[in-house]
């Protein structure tokens, strides 16, 4: 287990370095940062001054190491647009996105695990078909459009829920559904196929033959085995959902990282975008790392491989 952990940790670290390089380059390929920082109509001397002052005249690799070194300590520089520390802006917005991500994942799990189980217990019945249609539809539904439909129906027609902002828990209901529904198909398919595989195995037949009660067989003997791959997929899906929050947050005017990213992109506030890309990637890497560890912990076969 220790060797496995160290191996995974090493991989996560190298991936993190690669991702940080990519997000660093994102800013540099966009053109000369000195010109955009100096502002429109700046003279050549002013641009040169900015370039020397910010160190843009030095080799890229040194600039990268300096940037990365500061990023590790949580310093992402200042936003040229708002003249605020980027780290502070991230910190203020992080909470909303985390709440959205976690509640969306919980929603997806609460919907997909019971449905996947039912579908696996009664394959080829109406419940299996309902589960299948939900998953097929979820994969084809544009999540931003689903969000708008929710707004039209629950926000405007029925007036049940607020349609924009992030002040109360009610503000999170529709975004959670819109974002969570997107992750449902993958998890449900996995639960269904996993459950079916385990239900057909010998130890379940033995458990039934020795007269164990059905609920105990289902939850203790079957679900516990079938849930193992779900753990890893759930971690991956949470990462995807945090990345996809840019669309959902802009629809519901949720004051989170996704919204910040979108606003910053549209006003070319690239250091903020860069920091958000790096931040979300780091969370994804961390989540997959934890998912792998949890998987290895639950399933000894993975460790020895």
């Amino acid at each position, binding site marked *: 287990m220790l060797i496995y952990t160290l191996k995974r940790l090493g991989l996560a670290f190298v991936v993190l370095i690669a991702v940080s390089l990519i997000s660093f380059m994102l800013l540099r390929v966009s053109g000369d940062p000195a010109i955009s920082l100096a502002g429109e109509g700046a003279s050549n001397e002013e641009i040169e001054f900015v370039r020397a002052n910010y160190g843009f005249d030095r080799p890229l690799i040194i600039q990268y190491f300096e940037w990365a070194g500061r990023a590790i300590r949580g310093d992402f520089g200042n936003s040229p647009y708002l003249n605020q520390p980027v780290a502070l802006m991230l910190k203020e917005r992080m909470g909303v996105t985390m709440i959205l991500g976690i509640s969306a994942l919980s929603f997806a799990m609460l919907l997909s695990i019971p449905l996947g189980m039912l579908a696996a217990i009664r394959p080829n019945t109406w419940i299996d078909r309902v589960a299948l249609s939900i998953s097929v539809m979820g994969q084809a539904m544009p999540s931003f459009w689903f969000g708008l439909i929710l707004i039209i129906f629950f926000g405007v027609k029925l007036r049940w829920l607020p349609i924009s902002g992030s002040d109360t828990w009610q503000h999170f209901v529709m975004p959670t559904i819109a974002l969570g529904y997107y992750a449902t198909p993958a998890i449900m398919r996995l639960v269904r196929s996993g459950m079916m595989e385990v239900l057909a195995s010998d130890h379940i037949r033995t458990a039934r033959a020795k007269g164990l009660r059905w609920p105990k067989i289902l939850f203790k003997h079957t679900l516990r085995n079938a849930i193992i791959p779900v753990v890893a997929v759930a971690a991956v899906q949470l990462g995807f959902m945090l990345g996809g929050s*840019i669309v959902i947050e802009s629809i519901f005017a949720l004051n989170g990282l996704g919204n910040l*990213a979108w606003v910053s992109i549209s006003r*070319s506030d690239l250091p903020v975008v860069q920091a958000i890309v790096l931040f979300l990637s780091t969370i994804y890497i961390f989540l997959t790392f934890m998912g792998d560890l949890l998987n290895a912990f639950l399933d000894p076969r993975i460790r020895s491989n």
Partner: protein
Amino acid sequence: MTPTQQQEFEAGLGLDVVFPTPGQIMRQRMTTHKGFIIGGIMVLAVFLVAVFAPYISGHDPYHQDLSNRMIPPVWSAQGNWDHPLGTDNMGRDYLSRLVYGSRVSLLIGFSCTAIAAVIGISLGLIAGYFGGMADYIVSFIITIRLALPAVLVAVAVVAIIGGSMQVVILVLGCLIWDRFAVILRATTQQIRSMDYVQAAKAAGCSVVWIMTREIMPNLLNSIVIVSTLEIGRAILLEAALSFLGMGVQPPTPSWGLMIAEGKDAMLFDPYLVTIPGVALFFLVLGMNLFGDGLRDVTSPEGRS
């Protein structure tokens, strides 16, 4: 058994038991698989609409007519048959924009997937065939790609370069190759250990020969299935980008853009948002059903 009995037995076998060929089994599965047929028909319908767009819509999708703004669809009281799906806030015929929008979606879906396929297949083949260090490097590249938030990176890159259809195709194509690489890597690993590949190696065939003549034909199936599913994903991503204003630029009739343009008026005229959304949903659903069906029909184990 005497020789004559043996002959009669064999003749009887030949008469009574006709084993279907794999092709026949596949065709039989195709005609009975509901998802495959329904999905195929849905995709075909959108294709026909895209091809015959000028004949279906009576109007120019770009023509603005400010005296005829926001006419509701024909099923509402104020609608008329001149604009069956009404007009948008610039007075453009909504049916025409919808019909021409199918061209944009299909074009982007297919081109992105083509780019993604070239990248993903090459990586998957290299990793699966050579294994070892090559496999390690490719897996590493796949991990990096997955760690980057695709929508965010796409929006940022398009914003930096500037939105246009070519840019969207290129950026999305370079972002969605991951599934091609993952699946083809696994399939190639399986095929590599097959006897006929070993035989080709032993016979001294070149690597290029083995890859193109021995391995590729067996990958075609997976490639087609992944492609159909990726086309759906690309179409959804394009719509999301255009919706955020970082994709296809106005006045091009893209479904994502139409939803964005209708968003401000959706509280009073929800049809502006629902109609292009339903079109998107219909096309992607058809693609996915068709792709899933294709997998069921062509893989011997059926649904997995």
